[in-house]
């Protein structure tokens, strides 16, 4: 260990092979490393044991309703855009036990669960994913109450960000002001530079913990050329054609578009399968299941991911408020892009484009919003007394 830690924000350069050291460095500190890997026919985030599990030389072609793994003509470790799911399934697991209770005569008592939460190190976080995590922080870590399962895992997670040098056609982080470069919130940030001559990483520390890990890698201070190359690579990602979403005034537009005829048009295509909510890195809706053993001696409460697209999400008094698919799609979109702003002070969308890729009907949220913009509802509200 060097006595002088690398200064935060100072870029260092590291040969690609040298990045392998990051695994033992993190594991020594008690982290379980999570990173991208090829699993089946997609690049997903999973627990990794070693450097060689990273998807070297792989990329993915993404379009609306389509995802195809493709081989690259180089050995880039992070030469793709976002994977199928984000990191939320580690911080906010799809199924988590909230408590276990035991019968105690006619009463019961809650059993203390002393299992410590896992400590994760995320390697390969994209700027949009960092932004999504910050958004979920605002939702789940409140002033009065915090979501304790998320809080326990979120606290102390080690973040290794990767600045995107490619983007997918489904990306629109530019519109949502969340990328491609990772601005803050990481412990370490990497920019990959790969061509015929070299394969290196530009690394910078964003926190003291990051600096400590960086000190254990054989990195040298980066010279101006490498720094410029890294900038150019990130700009190349920005320049690649991305979809666009017009965000200025979108809150008022969507609130006013409640009766817009376009919703019926989308509803005719939407299957209400909920894929978009499963892959969205900011969707947070959950349901609670209370179960008990057949003999009634023990009970558990589980918290599970839920989706506003399910028919009984809004069930009350013997029926659902949102019976039609139209109402459910509208709820998701208007919540994500408008109501979220009132609730949490920012848009709920980071422009990762997963909902576009993974929709089996190929519904493209940016196109739907564009359609709503194009013909803003000209009709006055049905009840003139109710002024929005």
């Amino acid at each position: 260990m060097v006595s002088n830690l690398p200064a935060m924000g100072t870029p260092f350069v590291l040969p690609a092979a040298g990045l392998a050291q990051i695994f033992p460095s993190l594991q020594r500190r008690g982290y379980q490393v999570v990173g991208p890997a090829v699993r089946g026919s997609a690049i997903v985030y999973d627990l990794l044991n070693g450097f060689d599990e990273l998807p070297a030389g792989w990329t993915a072609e993404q379009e609306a309703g389509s995802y195809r793994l493709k081989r690259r003509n180089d050995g880039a470790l992070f030469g793709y855009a976002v994977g199928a799911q984000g990191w939320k399934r580690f911080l906010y697991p799809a199924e988590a036990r909230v408590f276990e209770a035991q019968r105690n005569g006619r009463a019961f008592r809650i059993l203390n669960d002393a299992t410590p939460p896992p400590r994760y190190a995320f390697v390969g976080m994209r700027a949009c994913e960092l932004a999504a995590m910050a958004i979920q922080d605002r939702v789940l870590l409140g002033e009065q109450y915090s979501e304790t399962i998320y809080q326990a895992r979120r606290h102390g997670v080690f973040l290794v960000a990767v600045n995107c040098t490619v983007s997918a056609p489904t990306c629109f982080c530019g519109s949502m002001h969340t990328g491609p470069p990772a601005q803050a919130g990481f412990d370490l940030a990497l920019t990959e530079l790969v061509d015929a001559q070299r394969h290196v990483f530009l690394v910078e520390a964003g926190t003291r913990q990051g600096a400590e890990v960086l000190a254990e890698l054989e990195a040298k201070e980066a010279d101006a050329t490498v720094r410029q190359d890294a900038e150019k690579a990130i700009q190349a990602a920005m320049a690649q054609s991305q979809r666009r979403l017009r965000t200025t005034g979108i809150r008022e537009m969507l609130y006013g578009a409640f009766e817009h005829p376009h919703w019926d048009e989308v509803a005719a295509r939407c299957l209400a399968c909920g894929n978009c909510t499963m892959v969205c890195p900011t969707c947070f809706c959950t349901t609670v299941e209370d179960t008990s053993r057949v003999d009634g001696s023990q009970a558990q409460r589980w918290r599970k991911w839920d989706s506003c697209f399910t028919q009984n999400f809004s069930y009350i008094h013997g029926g659902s408020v949102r019976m039609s698919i139209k109402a459910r799609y509208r709820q998701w979109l208007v919540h994500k892009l408008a109501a979220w702003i009132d609730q949490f002070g920012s848009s709920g969308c980071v422009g990762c484009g997963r909902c576009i890729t993974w929709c089996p009907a190929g519904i493209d949220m940016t196109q739907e919003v564009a359609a709503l913009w194009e013909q803003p509802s000209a009709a006055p509200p049905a009840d003139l007394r109710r002024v929005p």
Partner: protein
Amino acid sequence: MAVAKLEREAAEANEMLPRMARVAQVRKETYDTFTLALESAGGEPFPGFAPGQFSMLYVFGNGELPISISGDPEDHGRLLYTVRSVGKTTQALVSSQPGDGIGTRGPYGSHWPLKVARGKDVLIVAGGIGLAPLRPAIHYILRHRADYNRLIILYGARSPRDLIFRKQLEDWGRLPDTQVLTTVDYGGLSWTGHVGVVTGLFRNVRLQPFHTVAMICGPEIMMRYVIWEMEARGMPPGDLYLSLERNMKCGIGFCGHCQYGPNFICKDGPIFPYHEVRSWFGRYEL
């Protein structure tokens, strides 16, 4: 030791863990509606609540539901919950026996504007079981009677056998400066009171807009028509307060189920001044 303390703190900070309570009494209000009286089982008294707030009540291994607190906020020993049996968890609640353990979380949510209403007439309009979340407000007003001007209670239910708190309504009606009018959608020969919709009772009320705060709770369609009627009689939207309801799984703003436009019913509501939800209220499939 340090670890145990952290664990205890973590457990205390976990708002999803119910606190133990014990059923002290189950009182039948109507053929399908019962009032549960809960006592704290942990030795510590219940936290206080403000009229209009609700708790999440947990039946071991069965489920958890948001139920409005329906008792006197100044009775610190017991919390009352008036429950209508309509499904598996409400059925379990109303069939519980004194001594049974029930989990509680809360109280949560916003409350009736009892401070804002000081010095004014209070108009309470309730439909069906909607009278239950309003009863704590009535208790409070009666305990601080000099702080309020006239108290007017308009209550409607489907039929005489669906009326809750009948005896109390009669008692309240006999108090000075208090007007209680009850109506049913239909009645039998033994019912000599009003028959007709709640909005019909307004013709018997001398309303003083700008000097009245209205608190409304009942089926959403009923609240729509009541609000319409009151606006037609000159009540400003900011003086009308309603209690809204949506599906809830957590009660603390994380499960996302109770959203109503940009509002979370569990933390921004359930009580709202009408002008704040006006543009959302009545929107179909919101």
